[in-house]
Each structure stands twice: as structure tokens, then as C-alpha cells.
């Protein structure tokens, strides 16, 4: 499910904005999430200190990424793992699918992993005649619907319990119920049978400790534990940015991740996996593979502004506070990673098709305020906008927007001359006065009608003072 052409984003977001039911579900889920977060944050006086520590460690780790990845690889080898570096999605897919074929797997159990969504692993499995089973309840539900996740933490956030009840009736022929307890029990029973005999498992990775070669998988349901400990072959897939130096660094991240992601102090299960099972052990794979994925991340690393986005620990909090996400939901973004963080990573992971996403923001800064690793998302959005319009490979804009750009250029030319702009301002104020109602213009002629289609325009006022440039703050 790579990012689709821009036309799709414009269409899908326009359609989603009209979907009141979707907004009701998103508002209710986001509000509940933020309420929980406010409570756990208030109860934890060290929150800001842990945020600082996490930000510092991550920034430091990214600056030493080359060394840390070498150390991690050496340790993983010493622990008995096989390590594969994948430059792009295709290499990662091929490695994993070939491995599954070589093991004779007909079915694969998957813990929740956005990285496998990023590389579009499921379609590749299906093409090879292998059945990929998503086992996170939310992922399982969206997979049954033939969709992708609409939120990086809560994949089925766009569905009501009634939607899911009908889905289960259709798919399994069971009696309709919308009770979350009964629906969950049904999924448990079906997935448990699959887990007990699964021979190939995949999960993502939240953190990788270079010092010991240990992968950390954080989850609530237990499907990550099952996917990584039941099958004989286990593949963990991680982006190059997941590595942290030492075990002692980890607590700073775990203390903030669950709090911002779900309003919990810690997630239910945190697994520390260093290698395959040993002689006589019941649990753990016989063979463990670690796929370390670049897929555009090193290009982000080379850009001093964008590099900060690699700090992301995928808590999903920026989605929950984003006024755009809360109106249009995750699917409208047409990218695996939606919301504010998605808008800054997608153009690099999926190319220019997602180049329009940095513009899908009001730059309100709520994402920056909530980010537990202090990523300045608005600053990066502006940087990407600049790259997309003035940078080396500017986007091809639709004609209407090209017109707006030309207009903005002309305005910029005029705005450089204070006397001219003041004169024009006075002129406009005089001319528009008869059309104003209560200080606002309800309709303006084309091309300005695009503005008044959705909102009123304040009547230009000849005496209104403009802020001096020194008062304009950067986000």
C-alpha cells in the first residue's frame, strides 16, 4: 500500500471531511486517549526529565548510527542470529519471502509491525502462496476487511463495535454481537489455534540495544510474545533508526512510550529477545533473523533538518492531537504512516507521490508539544514544503495551485515595497467596504472565491497595524 498519486489524497481527504460518523469515532477515541495521557503525565513528576533524556539519547544514537549498527550486528551474530541489511523494501520483501519459502511455510503469524506495512510484505506473501495472518486484534480486523491500518497504534480506530460485529458475522458466520468482549473472545479462539502450530513468525522491533544485541518488542495483547516464541523460524524487522546504545538507556524510552501512546505506565508485555532458543528450551525460535531496513532513512539522515524525524519512537500521539488527522482519519493520507509524523517521513520513504502530505497541516504545533522525543514537526513540515516548492526537484502542481503560486510570487514582489502595499491596502479597503457584512466578506470574485468557499474573509482595514517582522516568530 505505497503512497498513491496526489489526486488520491485530495479526493480522499475531501471525502473524509464529509464523513461525520468517522469524525465522531476519531474524536471519541482521541479524547479518551488524551484524557488518559493527562492523568498518567500528572502522576509522573519525572515525565519532562525522561523526555529530555530520551531526546538526548536518541539524538546521540542517530549521530553514531554507523558505529551502533556495526556493534548491534556483531552482538546479534554472537547471540546466534542472522542479520540482513535491506537497502529498500524490495530487498527486504525478497529476503523474508524467500526464507519462508525455503522453510516450507504455508502460513505466517505476524505481530504488529508498521515496518512490514511499509515494505508491503503481505501482498508479497500472498503472491508466493503463503498466508500472512495479522494477529494484533486491530490489525486482524482491518485485514479481514481487506484494508490497511488507519492509525499506527490503534489500527481499527475508524471502526465502531457494530462495524466489527457485522464483519465477524459476515466472515465467520457467527451470530451478530457488538460486544467487544465477545468479539475479542472469538478472535482469541481463532488465532490461538493458529499460534500453537505456527512455524514462521514475524514482528517489528521497538528498540534494539547495541551493547547486548537485544531486540525489545512492546505490546499489550501477547501476540508479539506468541509470534516471536512459538514458531521455529522468527524474523524481526527494524528500521536502521531503532538502535540505542545501552541497556541503561532503555528505561527512559519505556517510561514515556506507553504513557504517550496509550496512557499506560508500561505496556502489558515488554519482551527482550537476544537470540534463538537454547538446547532443551521450549520457547523461542530455532532460527532467528533480523532484517535491518534502510528504505530512504539514510537519505533523511543526510538532511540536517529532516534527520530529527529519525528520533520517532512511533507512539502515535501526534496523530491523536492533530486537527487534520481528527477530521480525515488515517486512510485519507494514502500512506502507511498517516498524521503529522507520517507527513514528514512518507515523502522520504515513498517518494514524490507523498510529497503533498507536508501541506496537509495547519502548523498548529500540537504535535510538537506532545512529542515525547521532542521532534519539531512543524519546522520539518516547513522544510519539506520548501523542498517541494523551491528545492531541487519541485513538485508538479495542479494548474489551480500553479496559479496560486504565481499570485503569491507577485504578492511577494509587491510586499517588498511598503508604500505600494499600504496604498493598495487602502484602495482595497475602500473598494470592498460596500460588500462587507459585520466586518467580513462572505463572497469574493475568482480566484479569491476559493477562500470564501469555506470561510469568511476579514474586511481589509486601512488603519490596522501590521506586526513588524521582528515580532513574527518561527514555529
Amino acid at each position, binding site marked *: 500500500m505505497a503512497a498513491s498519486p496526489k489526486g488520491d489524497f485530495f479526493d480522499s481527504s475531501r471525502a473524509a471531511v464529509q464523513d461525520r460518523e468517522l469524525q465522531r469515532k476519531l474524536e471519541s477515541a482521541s479524547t479518551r486517549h488524551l484524557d488518559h495521557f493527562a492523568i498518567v503525565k500528572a502522576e509522573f513528576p519525572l515525565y519532562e526529565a525522561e523526555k529530555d533524556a530520551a531526546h538526548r539519547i536518541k539524538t546521540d544514537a542517530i549521530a553514531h548510527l554507523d558505529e551502533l549498527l556495526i556493534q548491534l550486528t556483531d552482538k546479534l551474530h554472537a547471540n546466534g542470529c542472522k542479520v540482513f541489511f535491506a537497502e529498500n523494501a524490495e530487498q527486504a520483501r525478497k529476503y523474508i519471502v524467500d526464507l519462508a519459502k525455503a522453510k516450507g511455510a504455508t502460513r505466517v503469524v505476524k505481530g504488529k509491525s508498521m515496518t512490514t506495512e511499509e515494505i508491503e510484505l503481505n501482498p508479497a506473501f500472498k503472491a508466493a502462496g503463503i498466508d500472512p495472518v495479522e494477529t494484533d486484534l486491530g490489525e486482524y480486523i482491518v485485514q479481514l476487511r481487506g484494508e490497511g491500518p488507519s492509525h499506527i497504534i490503534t489500527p481499527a480506530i475508524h471502526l465502531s463495535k457494530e462495524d466489527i460485529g457485522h464483519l465477524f458475522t459476515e466472515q465467520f458466520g457467527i451470530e451478530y454481537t457488538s460486544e467487544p468482549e465477545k*468479539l475479542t473472545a472469538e478472535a482469541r479462539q481463532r488465532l490461538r489455534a493458529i499460534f500453537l502450530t505456527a512455524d514462521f513468525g514475524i514482528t517489528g522491533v521497538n528498540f534494539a540495544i547495541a551493547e547486548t544485541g537485544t531486540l525489545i518488542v512492546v505490546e499489550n495483547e501477547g501476540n508479539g*510474545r506468541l509470534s516471536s516464541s512459538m514458531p521455529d523460524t522468527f524474523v524481526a524487522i527494524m528500521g536502521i533508526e531503532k538502535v540505542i546504545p545501552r541497556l541503561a*538507556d532503555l528505561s527512559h524510552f519505556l517510561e514515556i512510550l506507553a504513557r504517550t501512546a496509550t496512557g499506560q505506565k508500561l505496556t502489558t508485555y515488554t519482551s527482550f529477545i537476544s537470540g534463538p532458543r537454547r538446547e532443551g528450551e*521450549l520457547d523461542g525460535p530455532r532460527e532467528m533473523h533480523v532484517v535491518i531496513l534502510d528504505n530512504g532513512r539514510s537519505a533523511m539522515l543526510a538532511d540536517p533538518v529532516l534527520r530529527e524525524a529519525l528520533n520517532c519512537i512511533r507512539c502515535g500521539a501526534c496523530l491523536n492531537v492533530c486537527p487534520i488527522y481528527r477530521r480525515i482519519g488515517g486512510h485519507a493520507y494514502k500512506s502507511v504512516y498517516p498524521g503529522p509524523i507520517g507527513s514528514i517521513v512518507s515523502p522520504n520513504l515513498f517518494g514524490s507521490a507523498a510529497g503533498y502530505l507536508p501541506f496537509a497541516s495547519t502548523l498548529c504545533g500540537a504535535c510538537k508539544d506532545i512529542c515525547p522525543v521532542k521532534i519539531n514537526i512543524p519546522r520539518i513540515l516547513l522544510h519539506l514544503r520548501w523542498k517541494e516548492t523551491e528545492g531541487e526537484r519541485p513538485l508538479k502542481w495542479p494548474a489551480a495551485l500553479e496559479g496560486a503560486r504565481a499570485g503569491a510570487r507577485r504578492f511577494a514582489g509587491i510586499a517588498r515595497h511598503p508604500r505600494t502595499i499600504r496604498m493598495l491596502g487602502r484602495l482595497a479597503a475602500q473598494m470592498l467596504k460596500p460588500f462587507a457584512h459585520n466586518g467580513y466578506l462572505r463572497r469574493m470574485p475568482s480566484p479569491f472565491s476559493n477562500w470564501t468557499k469555506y470561510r469568511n474573509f476579514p474586511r481589509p482595514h486601512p488603519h490596522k497595524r501590521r506586526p513588524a517582522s521582528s515580532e513574527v516568530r518561527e514555529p
Partner: protein
Amino acid sequence: MAEAHKILATIKTALEAGERQQYLDLANNHAPVVPPTRRVPIAGPEHRAELATSLARELELVGGKFAGIVSPAELSNRIVTLAREIGAKVIAIGEGASLDMDAIGEALERADIKVVKAVPVADSERLTMREQIANADLGIAEAEYGIASTGTLAVISTETRPGSLTLLPTASLIIVQIDRVVHDLAAMLAAHGPARLIEHRLTLITGPSRTADIEKRIVLGVHGPKALHVIVVWPRDE
């Protein structure tokens, strides 16, 4: 490994192009990594009551069930009572980290409860053993550590104490010794240390398996145990 070298070279170039030093300075100019309040040693005996109370409270907050503080001599009886309370007919156990699990197993058998004991298995016996543990009503394991501030139990997986014991049965009972209860996660990780992390798989367990994927409503027992019971063992003479 051609890909590995290529990617590592790309990363190195990217870092150098992006003024690594400037970035390092940014990293170094922040507050100290370890907040000052964190530099507390593992709490001494005088803090035990406080730690046990906090562990119990936090456990209940995440949907776990605190089954009390008992002396080593009372432990077997308490477990038999608990097994009867929840109606467990089959119980899976392994070896303890410090406790005598065989004594517990014998007490359960005397109470007419079937006991499945996890033992080291050959590859060919794995599925059978797993099936037996999965069919148990209760799995019993001893934790390496308890974390008071979050209500967390840290268990390791070995050939005589498989992680399955805390994952596959319908309910889970985790026992922790009072002197293994620490204040917070940082203290627990420091006490465990990097070397043991490589030897055995470690799992932190904070409450029963849960999901909030349907309208953010919390439902317990989606994949793992539906209930988590915790007993703290505290010798009487301390």
C-alpha cells in the same frame, strides 16, 4: 553482506555530510541523561512495606489481582486456596528461581489438582509440551523482580521455566520474593544487567493480556492470560 557494507557506508557519508559534530554538540548540550532522583540504590529492607503496597496498588490498577503477602511456609497453602477459588483443575509449573516449586506441585496434587511440570524438551516433544501448558487453567512462575512503581513482574524464560507458563494458560500466577521488589524500571534493568539479558529471554509483565482495539474499550485476555494473580513472599523473621 554487500548490502550491509553499502548501507553502513551511506550512513557514514550521510552523517559526515550533515555536520556530525554540530549534531553531537546538540546531543551533549542537554540535561544529564539520568535525572537526579533516579540515582537511588535498590531500596533497603526499611522500604519493603512501601514497595509491596505500591506493587499491589499498581497491579490492581492494570487489572491484575493481588493475592496477598505470605511467608514461605504459608505459600503452598495459599496457592492451593487460590487454585480452588478460581476453579483450576490443571496447573502448569516449572522450576522456581529461588522457591521450591516441587513442594508446591506436591501440595497441589494432594488437593486433587493435576500438575503439568515443564521440563527440558527435545525439539520433537515441543508441540506436546506446549499443548499441555496451553490446556492448563493456571500457570505458575516465579518472577526475577517486581517493579513497585508500575506493578510489573519481570520473568525470564529458561529450559525449566519456559515463558509459555505466563503466556499460554487461561490464568497466570506470578510469585515474587520481597527482596526482589525494586522501585522502578531503571533499578530493575540495572540489577538484571546486560550479561543475563543475553543468556535468557526476559519479559516484563504488567497486568493480564489486554486490548483496546475496539472503540478503545479495554478487554482482558485477548491472546495471553485473562487474569494475573500475584503473591509476594515475605519471610516472617524480616
